[in-house]
């Protein structure tokens, strides 16, 4: 008989992530896919892929918790949900003990969450209703420049200078970028400015404590952004092993807690 597993489903506005953990909280399976328009189908796909990676099947699931924008759309898996703030906090606290500030940068939103040494939330902030500082901003710039994101990371590293963008607004920023291109400014310098603008918008949301953890899909896919964040903060930042899965991992940890606390295996599926 296989060991029971615990599942976290992070139904983000742009990507769906599923994490499968064992009874020690260790991530043993994960999958990610664009959320698209059919949340249920995407959740099913990611669930099965992550279970397969963990070498278990649906019957082995002891409990599951959903989080993220579409957390209430996966009742066929679980009706239990927690906010993404709670799940990111839980996931990051699992990886990094002690007092931390979490900066999570997602496709559609970003958050700054402060935890005390016990992992309890002191405060959290979400971005205002604006694309500034989110993955959507980078994606828009990448499509305007017609340069894929990973190439943008490489180009930014080759910059000799940085061209700062002056605006909050994604549309105004895009105009500024085009303006700079027209003036013959080096693309690498412009791209460095794009990354700077993005991380700056996030950092100005709140003050930071000593230990800073970066998480989220944008962090996972943009190593240059991490380097720049560390440079701006003035000290190294901590990155979980799977930054894109901290929310899903946290949700799975909540599922594990629920079973541990009640001593019951709720067999939701």
């Amino acid at each position, binding site marked *: 008989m296989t060991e029971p597993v615990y599942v976290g489903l992070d139904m983000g506005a742009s990507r769906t992530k599923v994490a499968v953990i064992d009874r020690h909280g260790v991530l043993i399976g994960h999958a990610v896919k664009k959320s698209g328009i059919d949340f249920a189908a995407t959740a099913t796909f990611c669930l099965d892929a992550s279970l397969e990676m963990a070498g278990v099947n649906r019957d082995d699931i002891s409990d599951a918790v959903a989080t993220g*924008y579409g957390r*209430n759309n996966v009742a066929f898996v679980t*009706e*239990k*949900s*927690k*906010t*993404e*703030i*709670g799940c990111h906090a839980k996931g990051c606290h699992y990886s990094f003990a002690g007092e931390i500030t979490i900066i999570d940068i997602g496709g559609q*939103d970003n958050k700054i969450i402060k935890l005390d040494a016990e992992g*309890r*939330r*002191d*405060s*959290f*902030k*979400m971005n*205002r*209703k604006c694309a500034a500082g989110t993955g959507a901003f980078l994606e828009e710039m990448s499509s305007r420049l017609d340069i894929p994101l990973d190439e943008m990371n490489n180009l930014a590293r080759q910059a000799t200078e940085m061209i700062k963008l002056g605006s909050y607004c994604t549309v105004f920023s895009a105009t500024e970028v085009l303006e700079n291109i027209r003036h013959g400014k080096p693309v690498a310098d412009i791209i460095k400015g794009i990354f700077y603008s993005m991380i700056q918008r996030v950092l100005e949301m709140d003050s930071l404590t000593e230990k800073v953890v970066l998480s989220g899909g944008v962090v996972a896919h943009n190593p240059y952004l991490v380097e720049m964040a560390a440079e701006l903060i003035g000290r190294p930042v901590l990155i979980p092993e799977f930054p894109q899965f901290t929310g899903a991992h946290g949700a799975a940890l909540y599922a594990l807690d629920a079973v541990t606390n009640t001593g019951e295996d709720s067999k939701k599926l």
Partner: protein
Amino acid sequence: MAQEKQPQRKKIEATGQMMKIMSDYFYDLNDAAKAPDRKVAWCTSVGPAELLRAMGFAVHFPENHAAMLGATRMATELIPEATTIGYSPDICSYLTADIGAYLKGVSPLAKAYPGIEAPPRPDILVYNTNQCRDVQDWFSWYAKELDVPCIGITSPKNFTNVTDILIDDVTRQIEALIPTLEKISGQPLELQRLRETVALSRECTELWRQVLETAAASPAPLTFFDGTIHMGPAVVLRGTRQAVDYYQQLLTELTQRMTDKVGAVDSEKHRIYWEGMPVWGRLRQHSELFAELQASVLVSTYCSSWIFPDFDAKDPIRSMAKAYLGLFIVRSDSYKEEYIKEMLRKFHIDGIIYHDAKTCPCNSNSRYGMPQRLEKETGIPSQVISGDLNDLRCVSDEQTRTNVEAFIEQLEERR
């Protein structure tokens, strides 16, 4: 947070009576606008309504009409009408919704009260800028459009103490309104009538205070969301007998609830303070959202702003000046913070929600560091939600839900 729980909220029985007196009020206004021997004044919510009532004016409050546009979710469609004539979507969405409704020829009154087509046509517009400059701009637009006089009080702002110098200033400004009002009403101001009106206003706001203070009980018998509805008479019928009678009835019901330990929210677990304006088009959703989480949003600056302990029939005009200056919105942050701290203590609050309303900076107190300062001093956590009073384009339901749920999770963790 589990979503399967059904919201549990208790209905207030006196609501029927409130609807009736509000209906009588709107029909009377409508009649007054048509009667050749009656005069109509438009007044800002904490403008000199006592003076106007004592001089026989039927008084219409455009802010009340604008809030109705918000609550009926008509506002968002109407705001662009005002934008096209030059009023930015970034300014007061009461102003833009109300002017938009006028331009479009629609009103929520028409739907709610058969026979009424629109707000009553004014004979004079009277403002007090104690809340913001937008009210003056708003009334000035109508003054031109309808060719009626527009007069008002230009209030001092951002002071901590209501000093004699300030009271002298506003007293003189109120007195200066009288000749114009007498000319329009066709009758001189009778001091005795003004005293009676001020006495009724005092009585009304005293009862309203007692109503709101029932929420200090645990569980709280009424919520902020109930308050935003039941404050109607305190806003539009200040200075009348009907308002006094109504609040006596409401107070009796709520006192009984307190005795019976009946909470407005079932199994109240978290006690929340609301700072800022309501999102009128989302009152029900927000009320349900908190109730689902066993959180009672039981007190607010907004509803408490219609408590005026300074009204004094013995010195009516000067006490009016004092009352209008005493308003929370017109005071400095240091006064506001002391005020909120006292409320947190009195109502045994666990957490504060600040509503940062995009188009009303004066009622958005989260923009100058207040949440951080208060949290540091009191240890009571807070959360800012972005939204707006009327313009639902500035509201993200999903963001609000996530913020509120995560905030309540945070309070749970700290219990």
